[in-house]
């Protein structure tokens, strides 16, 4: 039983990072209908920025805030400079996916050029080795902080989207852009804000992942794919769905690793998703597609 709880807790900790990534993916998909394949790479670049700042002896808070700003700025700039133009020309889903892939490649190149391909470790104030006992379960400080970051990120986003005027404008824009424009909502600006927020959420995930893994130019690829998968599992247009999907994915992955097979834990995670999608094609909490002929 203790073993089960232990692995479930590890899963929740991984799942809360996936949730941060997934929330960003969903936020972008439901507002601009773009699957952002550069999401992980934006986070990688920003995490490297915080690494540079920390090694220049900036305080941890300052470094995190600055790297969040960098991540958000890249997202916003990409939206205004590239996507707006492409959408004006009527680019389709595929075309926009390729555009984000292009951005991902550019960022990868810049990161390798600036920081090199050698893995480095991010000096992080919260330690991985310091642990607490809760009943029969051992939990590290880092895992606690990760879960806290996941909860805080989701909660802030929830409050922002459901309780503020900006959130109302975002919901209106993702519901119907034309109607929102007619009602005087500056939709461009709102979508830009959504891109910035989504990218910043990804950066938070990156910073909390960095101490557990080593920091190299591709360290976000796997977490990004997991976050993306979690978003699809929960339903791509549902923010609560992203969190639910991410937690299910994290726990399922950790339990398969513990009880079935460690080598195939990624595969089994995807198999679970495919099976769930075959039963509910629009994701767990997604709304059903209605198609007009």
């Amino acid at each position: 039983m203790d073993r089960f709880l232990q692995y479930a807790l590890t899963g929740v900790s991984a799942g809360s990072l996936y949730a941060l990534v997934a929330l960003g993916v969903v936020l972008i998909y439901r507002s601009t209908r773009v699957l952002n394949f550069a999401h992980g790479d934006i986070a990688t670049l920003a995490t490297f920025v915080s690494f540079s700042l920390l090694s220049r002896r900036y305080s941890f808070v300052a470094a995190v805030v600055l790297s969040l700003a960098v991540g958000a700025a890249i997202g916003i700039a990409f939206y205004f400079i590239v996507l707006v133009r492409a959408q004006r020309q009527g680019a389709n889903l595929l075309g926009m996916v390729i555009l984000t892939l292009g951005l991902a490649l550019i960022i990868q190149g810049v990161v390798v050029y600036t920081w090199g391909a050698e893995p480095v470790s991010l000096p992080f104030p919260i330690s991985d080795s310091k642990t607490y006992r809760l009943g029969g379960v051992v939990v590290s400080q880092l895992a606690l902080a990760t879960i806290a970051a996941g909860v805080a990120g989701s909660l802030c986003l929830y409050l922002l989207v459901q309780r503020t005027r900006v959130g109302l404008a975002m919901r209106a824009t993702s519901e119907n852009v034309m109607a929102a424009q007619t009602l005087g909502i500056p939709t461009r600006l709102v979508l830009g804000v959504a891109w910035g927020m989504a990218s910043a959420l990804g950066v938070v995930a990156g910073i909390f992942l960095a101490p557990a893994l080593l920091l190299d130019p591709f360290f976000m690829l796997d977490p990004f794919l997991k976050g993306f998968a979690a978003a699809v599992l929960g339903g791509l247009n549902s923010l609560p769905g992203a969190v639910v999907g991410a937690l299910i994915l994290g726990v399922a992955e950790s339990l398969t690793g513990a009880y079935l097979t460690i080598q195939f834990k990624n595969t089994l995670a995807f198999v679970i998703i495919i099976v769930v999608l075959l039963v509910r094609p629009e994701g767990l909490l997604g709304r059903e597609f209605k198609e007009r002929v």
Partner: protein
Amino acid sequence: MDLVDSYREDLRFARRPITRALLGLVLAAVVAFPWVAPAYAVFIATLIALYSIGVMGQNLLIGYTGQISFGQAGFLAIGAFTFGHLRIWGMPFLVALAGAGAAAALAGLLVGFPSLRLKGPYLSIATLGFGVAVYQAFVNWEVLSGGRSGLAIPKLKALPGLSVTQSVYYVDVVLLALFTLATYNIISSYVGRAFIAIRDAEIAAEVNGVNLMRYKLLAFALSSFYTGVHGALYAQILGHIEPQSFNVLESLTLFVAVVIGGIASVEGSILGAAFVLLVPKVFADFREMVPVVYGVTILLVLIFEPLGLYGRWLKTRLYFQLWPFR
């Protein structure tokens, strides 16, 4: 001007004498290429030829049938390793090639089943999962992948009077020509029209009597057959394969090739394959900056030429056909 009198004439491959002459010139250049170009250029051209086959298959799936797949690297791996094992057991080249294609097509049928229920991004995740699963299966089961050092594949014997590089070049180019002709025939037959109907409006296609299940599965099987053959030829030219070369990035590269070359165009597939292989080679002097150049080119092509390279070619051709009027 250029009038079409009958449907047969519209379907014809080369309609006007000038097209025929140009086609002949291109063919002559392709045949003469390995005799005038250095061995390295011939090697790259061979890569482009075999890559084009995979991109064409991917284009049948994405461009013509409208099903997004991020799992192509899985089919590539299945094709490459099936081919490798068959060759090591002593099968002749063509049998091993057909076996590779068939194994990949079988896997394609399997992956096709979710496509009956899933759409767009949801389908893309399901296929991505397949790619990851195949990758991990090959990484973890050494029986399949030939262990840590990978699988060594017997080299092709040189054709009489040619070097090995030249023979591989001719084999791959002939296969590319066969696959190109096959693709043209598929897309201008009932099957191709059914694919396009599914892409444009699935429900309308079904109402008009297209058997959705049959044609979606057929699209997946056909496209993965192409990809399997691509994988096999790739294994042949490298002579040594390991599972690490068939990761998610490989799937994405194929995907980029389709969009850059031009969605739903056969010639575009070849242009796209040439693009993804040549850009890193041309900018090889700035090693670190290759991905940046690659990414910037993708952004520029897509913003200024949304129809891809083939769209640019069509516009140029139209300009000269109508010149001096516009």
